């Protein structure tokens, strides 16, 4: 595919790796914020190809992983107990709530559908006027426009049986929380290219100058990531701390203003609970009052308490980059993708699951 395969060229990758090795003179820790970048790093075997002085730290960038237990419980409750067709992205299905996952709920007969796009859920609502259709709207800023658009489409069509269970998380507040953590030791960031595609780069300038960290907006293909790492390392070696854009073919400085407009038509910023990390101020989206009838949280008045995390899970330390997955005593033992104790083991984008799948553990 054009604009994709060219960024997987082995010879060019070699040139970048040589250049990175030549540039590095001391140890640096770089966090890739986005789970997609983590996935690409491990899937392509990049981590072991980098010079020893570079440590990649895997950030909290998996919206599926950080969706709170109580929201998953709520989604399951809706699918099991109400006259609801619950629609979701595929990766959300295996994530365990406090008792079971959506996949298990489906096995017990709940009406759960896996969709590629939230816009499909609006169609399902149109086709099933006697059922409530709820879309489990997880995601970062990247997914927010599509989820918001589904509400606008439903509104435009006059559908009264469509709503979204919004679980939106925002990247910059999480990055700040990670930098602020006393234990974290991050020298530079690869910012999530697709998040910036929507929101632009402006949010990162204060972070970079205030905390003196290079932030490079980076894409997802191997060459993108290698170039992003090289750009961070060059800054660090030159003691520069600015925002750079590696992914300029996709990311505009101001982001996608049409998409921002759609987001803020439907959503407003609120404090958000991140699974494994806790509540981060102003780090999520809630459906605005104007669209309250499309907000599953309000439409179905159920309150589900936040269940406690598994006591042996150290996901907070993993997602802040303080510990590596294999430093967890339960990694690959009690905690596996088929039986995850916590957030980062649940989706293939989660740092623990990515390590588990691609770094040598055997699940029999």
């Amino acid at each position, binding site marked *: *595919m*054009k*604009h*994709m*395969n*060219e*960024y997987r*060229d082995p*010879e*060019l990758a070699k*040139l*970048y790796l*040589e*250049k990175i090795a*030549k540039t590095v003179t001391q140890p640096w820790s770089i966090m890739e914020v*986005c*789970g*997609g*970048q983590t*996935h*690409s790093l491990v899937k392509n075997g990049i981590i072991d190809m980098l010079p020893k002085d570079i440590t990649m730290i895997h950030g909290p*960038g*998996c*919206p599926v992983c950080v969706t709170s237990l109580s929201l998953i419980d709520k989604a399951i409750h809706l699918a099991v107990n109400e006259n609801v067709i619950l629609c979701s*992205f595929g990766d959300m299905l295996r994530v365990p709530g406090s008792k079971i996952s959506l996949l298990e709920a489906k096995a017990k007969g709940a009406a759960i559908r896996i969709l*590629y*796009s*939230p*816009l*499909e859920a609006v169609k399902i609502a149109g086709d099933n006027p006697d059922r409530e259709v709820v879309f489990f709207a997880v*995601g*970062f800023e*990247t*997914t927010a*426009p*599509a989820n918001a*658009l589904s509400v606008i*489409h439903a509104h*435009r*069509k006059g559908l009264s049986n469509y709503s979204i269970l919004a679980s939106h998380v925002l990247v910059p507040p999480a990055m700040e929380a990670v930098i602020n953590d006393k234990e974290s030791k991050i020298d530079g960031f690869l910012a*999530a290219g*697709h*998040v910036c*595609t*929507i929101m632009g780069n402006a949010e990162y300038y204060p972070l970079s100058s205030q905390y003196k960290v290079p932030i490079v907006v980076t894409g*997802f293909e191997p*060459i*993108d990531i290698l*170039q992003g790492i090289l750009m961070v390392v*060059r800054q660090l070696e030159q003691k520069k701390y600015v925002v750079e854009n*590696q992914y*300029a*073919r*996709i990311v*505009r400085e101001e982001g*996608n203003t*049409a*998409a921002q407009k*759609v987001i803020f038509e439907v959503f407003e910023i609120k404090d958000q609970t991140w699974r494994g990390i806790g509540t981060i101020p102003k780090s999520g989206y809630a459906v605005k009052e104007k669209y309250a009838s499309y907000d599953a949280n309000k439409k179905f008045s159920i309150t589900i308490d936040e269940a406690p995390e598994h006591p042996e899970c150290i996901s907070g330390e993993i997602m802040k980059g303080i510990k590596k997955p294999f430093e967890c005593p339960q990694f690959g033992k009690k905690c596996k993708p088929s039986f995850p104790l916590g957030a980062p083991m649940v989706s293939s*984008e989660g740092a623990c699951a990515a390590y588990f799948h691609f770094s040598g553990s055997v699940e029999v």
Partner: protein
Amino acid sequence: MCLAIPGKIKSIDLQYNNSVRMAKVVFGGITKEVSLEMLPDADIGDYVLVHVGVAISKVDEEEAYKTFKYLEEIGELGELEDVEDYLPKKEGL
């Protein structure tokens, strides 16, 4: 990661009483219907980045080209190899 991939707009049509621009976008031979509401300027032939059924950015061909010039730009390539070998072909898959 917010999985998003680039594809080429094959056709555009208006839906929902002409209020919504939807496009057929081709990804390496397969076609998917995609909302163009976030890209009012996108046109047939453009490459767009698509995430969960919504096109969120137009690929800037010039910037794409620059990615491959980066090593040359930072002036360290000469001793390695000629960057021209790695420049993307005009029309890929």
